[in-house]
């Protein structure tokens, strides 16, 4: 029996190769094209959906948290012993740059000079970060995100850069849940109140980004901010850490834990710091993508079924002749299964080239401009290989079934074209 199976496979392969080689190039091209589209549907639809969120996650990493974010424990406002920790982390060979940040919640107020007593104050809540402009820029490239005005200089006095969504002219919808300041542009003066301390500052620049942590917050020079919050001990609220190329964030976080840093700070890789809802969205989008892809898979299977069925029906006479001269029906079924494999594999191979040779690098270089993120195409190799296996399997089944239907017909009826 295994010998017969192998023999049938061998004859099936022999017939399939010759059929494909001598088939119409247009027909073969069209079937392969359908397979390419199916492959793209399988990989790209879910890849883009996941990429919407992944783009957002990547932006948070590159523009705010870095590879590792060290923050104050949940029950504290600052990291104790920060100067030593900063010196430890900054000296690690795996670390390229760090940005210590002071932070506090604040109320911003604009238009207070022109406001009548009966008017509602023009205020908005925000988190204010005190940063070393050069170190922050080394980790997050914040200077490049200042769309209007200019970035902070170390000697700036009472100057801030402010996230665009704290300014009403940049907020796309009028949402009462998100208060924004009216008529504030570069050069405008606003008041910042942290605790009981209020200071008038000038807007030096406006941050334009799709990362919430930037667009709803305010940054000022750390020395200025320290005086507002009354911190002279050098204890910061968080430290963003950018690792050198190729370094593993988990390994570095574990190394820091070994040094005892976790005793007075919360150590998280950027992935660990992500809010759970983002993970849930990724999973949901993955599921949605799979659902859309399944429809594509069914369409491709039906296409192959029809193609092979028509092929087998029109070649019914030859199938009858083959059976008549003693070719095993199994060998004929194998030949159609091999043809289906050929279409699926060639379609997938071209699809792979399109996805990894063009779409992934192109979309990475020119992200899709969504309101909340720069969407990329996420196509992990493992998942893509699984989808190819799925496509090949369903195509083989779709090719095998009609071939079996025709092969099982009476031999003489097939030869004579009788129904």
């Amino acid at each position: 029996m295994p010998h017969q199976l192998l023999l049938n496979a061998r004859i099936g392969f022999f017939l399939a190769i010759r059929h494909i080689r001598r088939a119409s190039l247009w027909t073969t091209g069209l079937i392969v094209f359908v397979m390419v589209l199916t492959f793209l549907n399988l990989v790209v639809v879910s890849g883009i959906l996941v990429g919407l969120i992944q783009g957002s996650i990547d932006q948070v990493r590159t523009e705010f948290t870095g590879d590792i974010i060290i923050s104050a424990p949940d029950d504290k406002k600052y990291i104790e012993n920060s100067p030593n920790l900063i010196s430890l982390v900054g000296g690690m060979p795996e670390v390229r740059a760090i940005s210590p940040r002071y932070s506090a919640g604040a109320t911003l107020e604009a238009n207070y000079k022109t406001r009548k007593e009966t008017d509602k104050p023009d205020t908005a809540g925000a988190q204010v970060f005190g940063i070393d402009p050069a170190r922050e820029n080394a980790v997050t490239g914040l200077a490049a995100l200042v769309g209007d005005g200019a970035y902070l200089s170390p000697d700036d006095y009472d100057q801030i850069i402010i996230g665009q969504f704290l300014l009403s002219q940049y907020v796309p919808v009028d949402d009462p849940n998100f208060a924004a300041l009216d008529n504030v542009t570069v050069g405008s003066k606003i008041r910042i109140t942290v605790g009981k301390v209020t200071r008038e500052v000038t807007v030096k620049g406006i941050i334009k980004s799709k990362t919430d942590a930037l667009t709803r917050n305010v940054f000022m020079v750390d020395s200025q901010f320290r005086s507002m919050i009354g911190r002279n001990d050098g204890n910061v609220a968080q430290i963003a850490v950018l690792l050198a190329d190729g370094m593993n964030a988990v390994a570095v976080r574990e190394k820091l834990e070994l040094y005892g840093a976790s005793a007075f700070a919360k150590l998280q890789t950027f992935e660990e710091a992500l809010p759970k809802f983002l993970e849930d969205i990724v999973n949901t989008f993955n599921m949605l993508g799979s659902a859309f892809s399944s429809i594509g898979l069914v369409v491709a299977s039906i296409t192959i079924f029809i193609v092979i069925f028509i092929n087998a029906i029109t070649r019914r006479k030859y199938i009858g002749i083959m059976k008549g001269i003693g070719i095993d029906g199994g060998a004929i079924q194998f030949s159609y299964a091999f043809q289906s494999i050929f279409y699926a594999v060639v379609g997938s191979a071209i699809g792979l080239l399109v996805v990894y040779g063009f779409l992934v690098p192109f979309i990475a270089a020119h992200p899709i401009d969504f309101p909340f993120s720069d969407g990329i195409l996420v196509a992990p190799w493992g998942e893509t290989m699984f989808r190819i296996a799925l496509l090949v399997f369903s195509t083989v089944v779709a090719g095998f079934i009609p071939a079996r239907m025709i092969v099982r017909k009476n031999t003489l009826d097939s030869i004579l074209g009788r129904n």
Partner: protein
Amino acid sequence: MIETKNLTKSFWDGGTETKVLKNINLFVKEKEFVAIMGRSGAGKSTLLYQISLLDEPTEGEIIIRGAETRGMAQKEKTLFRLTQCGYVFQDYALLPDLTARENVALPLLMQGLPRKEAYAKAEDALGRVRLAHRAGNLPSALSGGEQQRVSIARAIAHRPALLFADEPTANLDNESSEAIMDIFSELHKSGQTIIMVTHEEEYARRAERVVTIDDGKIISSIPRA
């Protein structure tokens, strides 16, 4: 070699039975060349399909080389046709995607021969029908006569015990038909058992015996003088 006992074949159209073969008793000896003749619709092709195991009779027995074929499973019949029989069809029945060599080699490959050996035997068979020089051509590049010669080469390449031919000259001109019949005569001389259906008396005369069928019955079985 082949013996039929009370072979009957009926077709049903709705509730109406049409008996195409009626109690056929035929015996073909080993190495015999038998021509089956008859007018159109007499049942000669139907008889050939029954004794070549391409079809299942309604009643009666077919004994080939001492083996009763009635209880054979389809797989067994397929294997029997592969190893014991060769077929030449009226319309050549070559596979259009395969070259002449590949068409001839296909049954040999199915028998498990390595490709090199199968191709060598195929080329030998093509040589016997004087078509070795066309081995690499697709059927579409061959004339009708050449295609039929390839069909014969395919039928004899594995040296079957029985060669069945269904009107092998029906679609050919006189010259090609003569060439085909010459090949059959040579094969017969070399000891090949041949059963050929034809409606052309001139070619039937090349056989050792002419069996004539009319209305599903054998009406004569005359050895060649």
